[in-house]
């Protein structure tokens, strides 16, 4: 897959950094739906999405793609802890987004995120330092 082509299609200005473990690319206001649509058309596979807390209120999301054997890591920031869901375009993202919602409290626009690894009564955002789970059974 041609990096330059991706760059033009997605209208990105920043250059990527190429390393042994793939192409890394941070894009501030990435249109994730557009990205997913384009990459899936080009037979890329979504490996996973990594979420990392960024400051107190935001999360950085890294979309890891496998483009015919080549790794591509596109990262972007949530806005107000919200980002568009790609699950409708890429079914593989369904569970991944649910898990990120459980662990980081990120809200994915355009879909329902039912709890995956937590229980329905738990608050989402387990990884956001000191959001305690209820203490029942701990006594």
């Amino acid at each position, binding site marked *: 897959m041609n990096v330059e082509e991706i760059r033009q299609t997605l209208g990105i200005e920043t250059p990527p950094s190429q390393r042994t473990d793939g192409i890394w690319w941070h894009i501030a206001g990435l249109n994730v739906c557009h990205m997913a649509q384009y990459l899936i058309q080009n037979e890329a596979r979504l490996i996973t999405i990594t979420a990392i807390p960024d400051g107190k209120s935001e999360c950085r999301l890294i979309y890891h793609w496998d483009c015919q054997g080549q790794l591509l890591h596109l990262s972007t920031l949530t806005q107000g802890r919200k980002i568009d869901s790609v699950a409708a375009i890429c079914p593989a993202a369904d569970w991944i987004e649910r898990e990120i919602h459980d662990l980081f409290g990120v809200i994915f626009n355009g879909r329902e995120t039912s709890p995956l690894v937590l*229980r329905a009564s738990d608050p989402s955002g*387990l990884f956001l330092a000191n959001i*305690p*789970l209820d203490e029942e*059974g*701990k006594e």
Partner: protein
Amino acid sequence: MEAKLSFFVHLVRYARGRSPWLFHLNCGGCNGCDIEFLACLTPRYDVEQLGIRLEGSPRHADILCVSGPVTRNTQAALQTIYAQMPAPKVVVAIGSCPASGNVFADSPSVVGPLEKFIPVDVYVPGCPPRPNAILEGIANAIEQLKTKPVTGIGGKSHA
């Protein structure tokens, strides 16, 4: 009468020791202990020669074998299943996880150790314990099973 009763009690205790049925419960473990537990049933270890059977329903079982550190999501099921087992029953904690939480001890979603929720009779330490260690633990459990009160047919108390 006294002698007859004592013969009956002996027979029941002996039968219990010869026919312990197991139920296996994974409370959020990593599979290591579970597979080693399963290995006990297989040709190299073959627990069936001791009359041991792995049962699919807790209602049929005498010995509850628990592995895993007890996660929040399995805790309720653990207590239900323990309550479903008819007495006399004993609990074997397989591996380090149910005993102490092992490497998961400080996880917010782990609520163990196991003895907070149900009484534990035998601990088998190890991460995971080898099948022979698990067998030894079950043998200990059988000895404890034998000492539990003996009841008559239909569960009426005799001793």
